């Protein structure tokens, strides 16, 4: 009797965490929501990004971009990317309003002509700056941009992970599905596999060197994208992360696009 009670009690204690009747779809979504919830409240941040492109022959070229981001509570985040290198694109600035539903809004400032161009942002399968990252890979990862399915638990590099599959909602995504490894301890993405529209493995993205900021928010220091079909790769190195530097909506307007350097 006592034993039964204990068992029942411990089962009850488990219920809020993992519902017994949960489908794989519900569990996948719950994991994505939990990862999102744990990253709420960071406010605004800036960082420096070094991008190293490597082709099949091992030749490298680099880009450096300074990023500014603003968390938006009711919608997707706002982002401003300032290009510093290569020198011929220095001064180019990209402004993005990401949305939970529908395509993002995106503007590009071209310094040679002083021209702000609103650009089509519905089809985000195109390459970002000639890298192996598509726009959709590096844009704000809102929960609503995918549907989910929990696949299995797996140990990856010594860490207990959830493995979930996610399916892009956007009609113009370049992917049929993505398989994502998140560690159970902190719900950080450790690895993502991208499958193209024909469902063959296209790219693998690995996250390295997570650092905790403001005692709560984890950010990787490296993201490595490998294209299995072309043999090319791109390494993103993040540095100089700063949080709550005082950015507001006025730093993410078409006016700020023209003056921020």
């Amino acid at each position, binding site marked *: 009797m006592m034993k039964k009670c204990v068992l029942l009690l411990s089962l009850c204690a488990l219920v809020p965490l993992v519902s017994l009747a949960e489908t794989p779809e519900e569990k996948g979504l719950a994991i994505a929501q939990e990862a999102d919830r744990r990253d709420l409240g960071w406010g605004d941040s800036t960082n420096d990004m070094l991008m190293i492109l490597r082709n099949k022959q091992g030749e490298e070229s680099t880009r450096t971009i300074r990023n500014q981001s603003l968390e938006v509570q009711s919608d997707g985040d706002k982002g401003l990317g300032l290009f510093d*290198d290569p020198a011929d694109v*220095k001064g180019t600035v990209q402004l993005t309003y990401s949305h939970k539903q529908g395509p993002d809004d995106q503007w590009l400032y071209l310094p040679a*002509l*002083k021209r702000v161009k609103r650009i089509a942002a519905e089809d985000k399968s*195109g390459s970002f700056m000639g890298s192996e990252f598509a726009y959709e890979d590096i844009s704000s990862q809102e929960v609503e941009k995918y549907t989910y399915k929990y696949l299995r638990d797996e140990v990856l590099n010594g860490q207990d992970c959830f493995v979930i599959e996610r399916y892009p909602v956007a009609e113009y995504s370049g992917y049929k599905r993505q398989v994502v490894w998140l560690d159970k301890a902190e719900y950080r993405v450790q690895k993502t596999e991208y499958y193209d529209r024909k469902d063959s493995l296209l790219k693998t993205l690995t996250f390295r060197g997570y650092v905790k900021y403001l005692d709560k928010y984890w950010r990787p220091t490296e993201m490595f994208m490998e294209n299995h079909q072309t043999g090319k790769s791109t390494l993103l190195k993040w540095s100089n992360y700063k949080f709550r530097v005082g950015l507001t909506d*006025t730093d993410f307007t078409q006016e700020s696009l023209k003056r921020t350097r």
Partner: protein
Amino acid sequence: MRLGRFLCSCLLLTSTPLVQAGEWSGYVALEGRAFTQEALFPEQNYRVNLSLSAQPEYFHKWDNGKQSFTFVPFVRYDQHDSRRSHADIRELTWLKAGKDYEWRLGVRKLFWGVTEAQHLVDIINQTDLIENLDGEEKLGQPMANLALIRDWGTLDLFVLPGFRDRTFPGAKGRLRSAIPVATDRAQFESSQGRNHVDLAARWSRTLGDFDFGVAHFSGTSREPRLVLALDGGGNPVLIPYYDLINQTSLDLQATKGSWLWKLEAISRAGQPGGRYTAMTGGFEYTVVGVLDTQTDVGLLAEYLFDDRGQAATTPYDDDVFVGMRLSFNDAQSSEALVGAIVDRQTYAKALSIEASRRFGQQWKLSLEARFFSHIPEKDQTLFGVRSDDYIQLEMARHF
């Protein structure tokens, strides 16, 4: 002379401790133009022209990025056309940004508009026509500009002292009008001449998928009328005459999925023939990753209209522009834009090819080619260039 003194004091300023933390960037470029046909006029007896240009840029910000100083001089040396050997201050601006306003004082370049074939609405800066026939190169304009950034959009107010004359090729320059323009004999409707202070205002806003701007300009026209006269030796010359005009404009873009719908329209009063209307409208449709490649293809079509018809001072009274933009999305940022403008009545055609590719981290090679055909004699702006088809390569070193 005045320019030289100005430049000197600017260089002194940039070396003072106050702004020492600034940074220099910019480029030096060598341009080679090859003309495919013999020149029309005896002074232009060459088929190849070399030219060297440089545009350094100094930028310094302080006050947590809320204030900045920008200085961009430009200089070009041209092998054959002494007028194309010229210098300009593209920018010399102090900026102060507040929470909901921005102040800018000094010499500045800015752009209004959305279309590709021509830039009707873009009126603040004078065209540096001697740089490029496409009119996209601009001279720096002295101004005081206050931008009010509010919930209802952005209101830009401009006071524009100091008129800049349009540049034109000299007699030895190719890509010129049949009769050379005597830029030193420019005439003005305003009794104050170049000292007339122009005013402008523009309200711009984004509403969902729509970005639009409504503007008004009151002052000396950037586009001169060219009046036939004789020089001291009794040879015909064209004298630029700058009218006082009032121009109201609209620029609008709707971003609908992969489609960009664009419209620019102006209504201008103050020039002979009375008030007139001109517009450019069309679309750009982008296909991302064609044929399983990384290449994006943009298809462009625009219609260009001017209700003055054949009396228009631009060649685009009833013209159709079609173009294709290729973005290869490679490590070298290779891209190309091919376009053609055809006059629906005279069948005058202009074909343009622009392409560029980066080499290493700092070199950029650009190709530009333009071909003209069926240009009618009454087309004052293009008849003189009918034998000036050219292919141009430019190698630029950015730093």
